[in-house]
């Protein structure tokens, strides 16, 4: 009997929502780590009972939690994130040099094949990896070692490495995205990196060929077509058919092409989902209507999905890590809001219903399909 486990990170703790295969009945556990910010938690594709969670607070810093039983119990593991060598400087908001300072782990990406190997994207932007189940973390310094790093600047949320995508067909290929430096690719397991931002246009960057400086919000890939990437940028939804070598805008008829998350249907590699947000200074849906937009053609042509979502007086946001899909058939789609709702669609986005309505502000949503 299939089931799904929805892992929800919020501003005040983590929640685990377990649903049946029809995604009608839900069991809610939590808050885990109540009172702490949980930027992200995610399960290992190689061992679904192995979960990792990033727990942090402005008072007490970073903690990493690990579960070996699907979130029933947790243990603290290593929380020492130290930049390799002399950290150097990046640019601050005002363009002056600013020392690299670790703030928190934004995103944890377990290896596709090894439950003890996990990548961590951190603020200030860097990529770390553990190969011992989280006990120790080591920077992959080639990313910050890229010649452009001294010119990276933070986005409004800080200079965070928020997206890590692994290519299942080429285990040495990794993609990451940094706000507001852009997207990067490594073809040698994270040793060396190069920017992959050709075709991105960003207002405020005078050089149309700027190698870095783009505020990429999220990148998504379908595992069956790892050369095709989808991106929600600060403004613009983009598609690449050549593993990031070049990008084309596919915003099409979206009511706004600003937003944070983007994800791909589990069984249809050109069916993608975004949540349009009115603007970068008004972080809520256009017209007070919460609508997911779906394209079945890899972008350009979009349809609104609103059945079961609030269509008046709705002014929540959906953050970049707060959307996910399950692998059941039909594909389930999930997202969480800054208003504390987690919505689920058991039919690819046609209809929606809240699993929970009153959690703390949701930062991240991940889904595990359990068979």
């Amino acid at each position, binding site marked *: 009997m299939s089931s799904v486990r929805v892992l929800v990170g919020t501003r005040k703790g983590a929640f685990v929502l377990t649903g049946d295969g029809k995604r009608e009945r839900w069991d809610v556990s939590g808050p885990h780590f109540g009172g702490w910010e949980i930027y992200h938690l995610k399960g290992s594709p190689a061992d679904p009972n192995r979960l990792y969670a990033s727990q942090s607070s402005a008072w*007490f810093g970073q*903690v990493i939690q690990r579960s070996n039983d699907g979130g029933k119990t947790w243990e603290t593991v290593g*929380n*020492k994130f130290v930049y390799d060598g002399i950290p150097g400087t990046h640019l601050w908001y005002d363009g002056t040099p600013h020392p690299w300072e670790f703030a928190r782990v934004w995103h944890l990406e377990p290896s596709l094949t090894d439950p003890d190997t996990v990548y961590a994207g951190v603020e200030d932007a860097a990529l770390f990896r553990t190969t011992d189940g989280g006990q120790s973390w080591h920077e992959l310094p080639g990313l910050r070692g890229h010649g452009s790093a001294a010119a990276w600047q933070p986005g409004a949320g800080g200079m965070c490495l928020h997206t890590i995508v692994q290519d299942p067909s080429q285990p040495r290929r990794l993609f990451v995205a940094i706000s507001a430096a852009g997207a990067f690719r490594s073809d040698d397991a994270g040793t060396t990196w190069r920017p992959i931002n050709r075709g991105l246009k960003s207002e405020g960057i005078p050089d149309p060929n700027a190698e870095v400086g783009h505020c990429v919000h999220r990148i998504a890939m379908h595992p069956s077509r790892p050369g095709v990437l989808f991106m929600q940028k600060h403004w613009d939804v983009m598609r690449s058919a050549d593993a990031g070598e070049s990008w084309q805008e596919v915003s099409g008829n979206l009511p706004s092409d600003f937003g944070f998350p983007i994800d791909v249907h589990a069984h249809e590699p050109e069916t993608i989902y975004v949540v349009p947000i009115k603007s970068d200074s008004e972080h809520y849906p256009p017209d007070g209507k919460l609508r997911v937009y779906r394209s079945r053609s890899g972008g350009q042509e979009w349809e609104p999905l609103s059945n079961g979502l609030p269509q008046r007086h709705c002014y929540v946001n959906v953050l970049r890590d707060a959307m996910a899909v399950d692998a059941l058939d039909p594909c389930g789609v999930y997202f969480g809001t800054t208003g504390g709702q987690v919505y689920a669609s058991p039919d690819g986005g046609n209809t929606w219903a809240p699993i929970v309505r009153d959690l703390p502000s949701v930062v991240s949503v991940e889904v595990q399909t359990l068979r």
Partner: protein
Amino acid sequence: MTIRVVLPAHLQTLARVSGEVKLDVDSPVTPRSVLDALETAYPMLRGTIRDHVTGTRRPFVRFFACEQDLSHESQDAPLPEAVGTGAEPFLVIGAMAGG
């Protein structure tokens, strides 16, 4: 000698303790020796009170004992005698915030 330490609620949860923590600390009893003993007994607290690398107090954490703010004293300065005898606890305090 046995030292009493009071942790803020979130660190009690993290360390899975309730109420005061009791630690055996060799003389001289200083903030550093108390925190070293605390982190040895409860390794999950490493990095949450002091920076992993520099060992400095995190900005939103303060140290008190015997109604004195010791946050800005040297970590190697002896703590009040009453802390060393266990008559008074060493307090780790999280800054109050909430608006």
